[in-house]
């Protein structure tokens, strides 16, 4: 038997281990290697694209997990009463910029509801379209435009999530981090509370870091 293990890591490549087992389960051989993340992602995407359902039943991918996180964030956050009065029946989870999720997001949120509202996944191109969203994932492709995006969302009750570096330091609310092969997150609570969002303590206690003293405009 052969097992291939991919280790999620920081940086631009995945670690890889190839282990050979005897039928009794003892490790016989052990290879270590590195595969660039991009390659893996490409393969995974391809596989995802080809395998569809099958791959969903096996170990979840990074963005499947992140998609689940997006959904679950929605369950631990309280929006102010008057937020996005426009679309009361829906709970939109939007992706701004280059969509890293693909079908994972749709698959995750399909048929689910939060607080009685049907969850829908949206891809948007401009911050202005984000006004109706509850949760907004800002793709790392928008790294350069982040300041503009955030200021456009300034007074709106949208939970901003991203996995781009320094997201919370630059005013974002939740930043997804990969730590010890796990997806973690850090929270900029001040930013969230400033727009009337209330984050459950149950959520906060899981955060790696919670910033309560962020001052906008300082970039800290």
């Amino acid at each position: 038997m052969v097992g291939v293990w991919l280790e999620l890591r920081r940086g631009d490549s995945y670690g890889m281990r190839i282990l050979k087992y005897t039928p009794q389960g003892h490790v016989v051989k052990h290879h270590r290697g590195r595969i660039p993340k991009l390659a893996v992602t490409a393969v995974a995407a391809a596989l995802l694209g080809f395998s569809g359902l099958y791959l969903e039943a096996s170990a979840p991918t990074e963005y499947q997990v992140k998609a689940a996180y997006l959904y679950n964030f929605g369950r631990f956050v309280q929006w102010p009463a008057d937020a996005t009065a426009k679309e009361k029946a829906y709970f939109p989870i939007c992706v701004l910029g280059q969509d890293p999720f693909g079908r994972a997001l749709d698959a995750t949120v399909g048929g689910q509801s939060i607080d009685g509202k049907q969850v829908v996944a949206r891809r948007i191109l401009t911050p202005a379209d984000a006004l109706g969203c509850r949760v907004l994932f800002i793709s790392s492709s928008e790294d350069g435009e982040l300041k503009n995006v955030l200021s456009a969302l300034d007074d709106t009750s949208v939970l901003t999530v991203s996995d781009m570096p320094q997201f919370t330091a630059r005013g974002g609310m939740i930043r997804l981090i990969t730590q010890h092969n796990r997806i973690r997150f850090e929270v900029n609570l001040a930013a969230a509370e400033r727009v009337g969002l209330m984050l459950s303590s149950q959520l906060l206690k899981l955060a790696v870091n919670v910033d309560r003293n962020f001052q906008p405009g300082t970039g800290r």
Partner: protein
Amino acid sequence: MRFRIQNHSIAAELTWMNLLVSASALLLACAAFAAYDLIMLRESMVRVLSIQAQIIGANSVSAMLFNDPHSAESSLAALKAGPNIIKAEIYTPDGLPFAGYFRGHRRKTGPLPKIPAGQTEAHWFKNKELIVVRRINFQGKPAETVLMESDLRQINNRLKRYAAVVFFIVVACLAAVFLMSSFMRRSIAEPLLRLADTASIVSRDKDYSVRASQVDRYNELAILVKSFNEMLDQIQERDAALKSAHAELELRVQERTRQLAGANKELEAFSYSVSHDLRAPLRQIDGFSNILVNDYGRHLDAEALRYLNLIRNGARKMGQLVDDLLNMGRIGRQELTRRPTDLNPLLQSVLQDMQPELEGRQIEWRIGALPTLECDPGLVRVVFVNLLSNAVKYTRRKESALIEVGQAAHGGEVVLFVRDNGAGFDQKYAHKLFGVFQRLHRADDFEGTGVGLATVQRIIHKHGGRIWAEARVNEGAAFFFTLETVRHGAQSRALDEAAV
């Protein structure tokens, strides 16, 4: 335990009964309460565990959703505060272990027990543990399953405490009951004991003037005491009546005895004077008649001589009568002294004494074996003398006289008989045989005073026996008599021989 109680006094028995009843009631009540309490305790334990599971669930849902077992375990760690919690585990919705708390740091995960369909929760008491498994939902969707496992130390501790409390309660109550029993003693046992004492005093000392003291309350005991005293009154009365009747009887007996003694003495004096005073004239009659014959016989004709002879005979006869009467009287007054007497040598001795009478007589004697009986040898001797004399006398006319003496079995009794083949008598007059001076033959034919058989009958009756006779004229007579039942066993053989 049962036979020990039966040997105790009533007071002790009452006390035991009280103690037993109280102890049983107490134990039953305590057992019931304990049982109820323990059931409630179990339910509360389940409830508590369930609540703990829910709390844990609420606190760990996010950790489950965000795949942070660490966080879940740190909230589980708080369970350390509950020393009874063996472990608590959180399982993913797929039933895989996610996070756990293990008392004593021994990780012992196991498969998730199944909750029956439709139920949120299930619990089991087994292997001295309580397991509670609960499905945790978050916002309507199943999030995880929590398993709580607790030991039963609470129940055990409660049981121990119960045992101690029950023990003290029972001991204290029994002590109180024991004390209260002393009151019961006084009201029931004491009167009974007093009554029993009184009864035993009366019985032991035969003192019927004693009375039992009355009971203050009116209950069955009072009735018993009252009846007891009334009984004693009656007994006392009867006793007194008996005593006075006894005394009266004694007096009467003494009186009678005195009279009898007096009568006896009179009789004795009578006999004495008869024996002496009657004889002298008789002697004189006979004497002078004789002198007449001797000295003046030649002057008298045959007729005169005949008259004188008759006078002499008369006197002689009277002398005989006097002697016989005196004999009979003496025998009648004589005390019977019974001794085991072998009748065979006695009979032989009688025959010996009769030799003079038997001179010149041809008599065939058939003497059977006679028993040894309890009787007065002197008096029985008289019986034989009389009966044999009669037999000899009344066979005088027979050429070959046959006289039999023996014993026969007659309905279980020993009967002795004397039989002869002599003149016999008419059975018609048998009832006159034993009368005093009664004769069934003329004096010409057979001399005799008619007192012999009366004497014999007197003697037989004194012995408590019976006498009767059977005879046929000229064919002989047989006299049968008993002297009370045979005492000595050797006689059965003799009986058999005689019966042949």
